[in-house]
């Protein structure tokens, strides 16, 4: 009976972890659907989400709100922040690769470099100016943004004749790995490698739900077999279910969702329907990244798991495995794959093999690639060469 109790509890834990994997996996699978490459920077977007959540909760301006409000606002901040970041990455790196560098790419590039100009030039200027630091930083940023925009616009439109777009998916993949390193190391520089741990008070630990499966007498003692679910776990599950239902409705039943599916199925045909491919691709980055941001918040600020700036690699890889397991390109597959991965990991963690907890996902990956390369819900189409 002890074993059954353990099994039930680990299943609950696994589903909670799995719903986090599923939220991240959706981002991999949707981007793969429209662009046929793995956006390896996605895990690092999740990391940024976790940090936004951390700083929002530690910030004083939110601490006066009741816990539910505080949690909702933080969730919203994480999702918006990550959506902006995801779209920014697309505009900065992937779109110029896909379409060739042109004058339209000047703004994201100027924005990117202006951040560095602000950090370094702003620091130097503020050390020798009487003005308050924030004014110096803001002015440096905007002056640099405007001048760099103009400079890039001019040079990119001159260069665009000589630069051909790269249709090679490998190029995009390597770029994604590069962006991943950039975000990760920028994370180390900005947030340091100190492990952070915080839990949203009020929701997470004050509520407990005990569900008993059955009761039995052994000797004269009453034993209860069941699970104990914390408020945090309920919150993670509920939020994941709401976000996923919303996503599945959006993709399945709206005009925009149909356009996303059309671009995934056949880019040229979609273009001939008048669907603006770049807009739709940008949108998939926004949706996927905002869900990764939500996952970062749920896993770290609601469940209270400690993290540092390298978390994106570990969690991102596992979520990627979940997406492949479910069938890359399929949103339902990402959900199934995520849940399976979560439960598998939780079972391993709760058994005598607990030290293999992190290895089990990759064992599953190897097995699935051997047995059913298309994934559980994948279409398993042979690529024509």
């Amino acid at each position, binding site marked *: 009976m002890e074993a059954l109790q353990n099994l039930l509890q680990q299943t609950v834990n696994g589903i909670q972890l799995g719903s986090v994997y599923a939220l991240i996996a959706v981002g991999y699978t949707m981007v793969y659907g429209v662009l046929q490459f793995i956006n390896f920077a996605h895990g690092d977007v999740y990391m940024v989400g976790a940090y936004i959540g951390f700083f929002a909760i530690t910030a004083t301006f939110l601490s006066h709100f009741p816990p539910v409000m505080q949690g909702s606002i933080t969730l919203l901040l994480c999702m918006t922040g990550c959506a902006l970041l995801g779209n920014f990455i697309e505009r900065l790196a992937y779109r110029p690769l896909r379409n060739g560098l042109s004058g339209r790419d000047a703004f994201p590039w100027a924005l990117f470099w202006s951040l560095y100009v602000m950090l370094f030039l702003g620091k130097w200027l503020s050390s020798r100016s009487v003005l308050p630091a924030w004014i110096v930083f803001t002015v440096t940023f905007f002056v640099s943004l405007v001048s760099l925009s103009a400079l890039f616009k001019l040079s990119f439109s001159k260069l665009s004749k000589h630069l051909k777009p790269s249709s090679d998916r490998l190029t995009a993949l390597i770029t994604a790995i590069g962006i991943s390193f950039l975000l990760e190391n920028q994370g180390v520089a900005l947030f340091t490698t100190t492990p952070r741990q915080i839990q949203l008070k009020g929701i997470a630990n004050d509520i407990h739900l005990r569900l008993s499966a059955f009761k039995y007498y052994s000797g004269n003692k009453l034993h209860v077999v069941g699970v104990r679910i914390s408020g945090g776990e309920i919150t993670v599950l509920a939020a994941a279910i709401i976000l996923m239902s919303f996503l599945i409705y959006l993709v399945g039943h709206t*005009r925009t969702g*149909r356009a996303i*599916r059309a671009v995934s199925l056949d880019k040229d045909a979609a*273009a001939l*329907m008048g669907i603006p*491919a770049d807009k739709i691709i940008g949108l998939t980055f926004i949706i996927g990244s905002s869900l990764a941001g939500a996952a970062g918040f749920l896993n770290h600020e609601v469940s209270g798991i400690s993290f540092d700036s390298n978390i994106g690699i570990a969690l991102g890889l596992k979520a990627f495995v979940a997406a492949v397991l479910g069938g890359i390109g399929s949103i339902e597959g990402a959900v199934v794959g995520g849940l399976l991965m979560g439960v598998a990991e939780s079972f391993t963690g709760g058994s005598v093999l607990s030290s293999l907890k992190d290895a089990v996902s990759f064992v599953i990956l190897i097995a699935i690639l051997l047995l059913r390369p298309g994934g559980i819900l994948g279409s398993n189409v042979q690529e024509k060469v």
Partner: protein
Amino acid sequence: MLKVVDLNVYYGAIHALKSVSLEVNQGEIVTLIGANGAGKSTLIRTISGLVKSASGEMWYAQSRLDSLAPHQIVKLGVSQSPEGRRVFRTMSVHDNLLMGAYTRKIDRATLHADMDEMFTLFPRLKEREKQQAGTLSGGEQQMLAIARALMSKPRLLMLDEPSLGLAPFLVQTIFSVIQNINRAGVTILLVEQNAHQALRIAHRAYVLETGCITLTDEASKLMENDAVRQAYLGG
């Protein structure tokens, strides 16, 4: 209505279209015939904006098409039913038609009226409305591809090989539907390998050979042309 002047297109080192000029007037059916690999599809893919030209000009009404993205060209009223049908296989017939109307901001009633119009044109699609497009037969998929292209209410419809791989009686049906569409006021640019059928319904025709326009005339005159008869009409 559509005017292409001195168009050059390259695929890497291959010069696919060499100084191609072509004109389509309002209300016409113009056909572009030529052998496999002559560049017919390349030409209409370039007009649709899917392939970028190296030089030359393309005009539709008062707008220059060269620098526009495919979705902007559709918005202007130039629609294409691509080679190989390219229907969205895992979407229903209904959803495929909805995608066709993507650029139009219209209410439900107009949409349904337009869809019914397609179902009168192709009654078979009505029976298959809820079915996945990938499960349709080749002929039905071709009908769907044409109907889908018409859902954007184009003024110029470009059809790429609508008879490819169809049974002879279906080819007849498709071509008579094309004539009906034209009578309803849609200008048509028809790319075909089935030169006999294409020339029968077209007003004017262009012959494309290895990237060059070699002949152009009224369709009926080309039918009498010895060179055309030898090369494309089987003697």
